[in-house]
């Protein structure tokens, strides 16, 4: 392995070990939360709702819950590790090393994306307890999950650099991300909305992510998945470029 690869692999490994060794903080909460979602929305309410888009309500909400878990955890992982490292100054061990800014950003984002994907798989695992889980378009499913978790890993880096207190992390996750996902057609179809609210919903980027993953799983979407993929990829590239620029300028990292 060359120097760059060793540096990158070391930071990725460190990041992965951090979340793998603390499963009660990282993996258990989404398992419990999603078990509750499936039990309440899927089993208790879902039986009264019936089918949506030709599948059971449980199968309809599963992609949305996967997206919710994936983006929450990839965002939370990146924002927490950057902010906590700044708060306790130990990120300086990385910053004062000869790692390139690009390696640092790529390592933080990759590890966060991986955590989002692991969370997605856990949620699918919970879903399997309650229902069968179709995978209609596996390539689209993988592509959407990769791009979504990378995008939110990248956004988490920005959040971690911007935050000046733990409250900021809560604000970003609970007051911005979560409402956007909940109004992103996780629990309902856009078709049930009045035309005005349907159009307003289309301004919510989460709608495209939820529909993309839904297309990958149950083969049903209300928005063209290719357009969604192109737009999301473009946004991700922009976000990663901003990450790199912030690292280069030392935003939140150097005085």
């Amino acid at each position, binding site marked *: 392995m060359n120097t760059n690869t060793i540096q990158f692999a070391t930071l990725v490994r460190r990041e992965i070990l951090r979340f793998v*060794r603390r499963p009660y903080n990282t993996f258990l909460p989404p398992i419990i939360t999603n078990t509750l979602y499936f039990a309440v929305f899927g089993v208790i309410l879902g039986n009264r709702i019936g089918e949506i888009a030709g599948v059971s309500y449980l199968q309809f909400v599963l992609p949305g819950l996967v997206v919710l878990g994936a983006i929450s955890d990839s965002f939370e992982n990146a924002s927490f590790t950057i902010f906590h490292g700044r708060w*306790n100054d130990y990120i300086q061990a990385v910053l*004062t090393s000869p790692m390139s800014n690009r390696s640092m950003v790529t390592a933080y984002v990759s590890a966060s994306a991986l955590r989002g994907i692991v969370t997605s798989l856990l949620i699918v695992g919970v879903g399997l307890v309650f229902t069968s889980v179709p995978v209609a378009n596996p390539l689209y499913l993988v592509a959407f999950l990769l791009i979504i978790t990378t995008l939110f890993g990248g956004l988490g880096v920005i959040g971690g650099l911007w935050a000046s207190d733990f409250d900021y992390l809560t604000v970003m996750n609970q007051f911005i991300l979560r409402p956007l996902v909940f109004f992103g057609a996780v629990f309902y179809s856009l078709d049930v909305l009045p035309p005005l609210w349907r159009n307003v919903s289309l301004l919510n980027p989460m709608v495209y992510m939820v529909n993309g993953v839904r297309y990958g799983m149950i083969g049903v979407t209300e928005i063209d998945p290719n357009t969604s993929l192109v737009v999301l990829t473009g946004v991700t590239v922009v976000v990663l470029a901003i990450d790199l620029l912030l690292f280069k300028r030392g935003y939140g990292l150097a005085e």
Partner: protein
Amino acid sequence: MTELAIRTRELRKNYGDVQALDGLDLTVDRGEFFGLLGPNGAGKTTFINTLVGLVKKNSGTAEVFGYDVEDDYREARDRIGLAPQEFNVDRFFPIIEVLEHKAGYHGIGSEEASRRAEEALKTVGIWEKRDTRFDWLSGGMKRRFVLARALVSNPDLLILDEPTAGVDVQLRHDLWDIINRMNDEGTTILLTTHYIEEAERLCDRVAIMDSGRKVEVAAPDELMARGTDTIDIGLADPPRTAPRLDVEGVSEVAVTDDGLSVTAAGGSQTAPGLMRELERQGHTVISLDIRRASLEEVFVNLTRDDREFAEVSA
């Protein structure tokens, strides 16, 4: 590789109205043991953090072994090991893993990283604590650990920011031994300290900084030679008033219970002439004790002079 380990020119950094570095020009030779002295707020830590990339300079240049700390930051940082004043250690992992990670960030493969981590922990004497997390170490062990972390990448330039602050005498001497050994093996050392004795004992040269500027750079002995010594002279029959002593170097004469206290530049050179002059005046010298100016006194005088100059200039 260049013969200069550090070279800065017109280095400036300000925080709002506060000028932390005010046109600092400094060079440190390769292999040198260099001390940085200065009162709190003199700009020592800002200077160090500029070298490692934790502070972005406003203007001027800073190079480490010829590499610009911003344009060639990877080459510059690869040569630096830093033991900072404030603890900044990853609390999630046992200390041996923290060292392995640090070595990995420097591009050292995992087997070699583990070997170096072991060597560094053994060097500072806390190998038996390798599976402990940083928070559970005692204060002295924490100081040892940050030194181990600075050593693990086998740096050409070891920067130690107040490495012995708040540690007991035994540990201080242990740390001095380790640092001296590194320097003997060719590592350039940049040390900031509040303990003047430490600088006197360890450093080839010291720079005295104040208000972001370099006030003076010289060997500790050279600086001390610039200070005034005190010569206590015991006389058989002490006079009631201070005699006039026309001896070169004497700046002040005071009467004491046993004789005289004479302030003079270069006490050992002045003493023979002083004795001759006193005997010529009819005094009998029965004892003589020269107290050399300490680096601390020189330091206080230099930084006080600098402040007075700054106030007058303002």
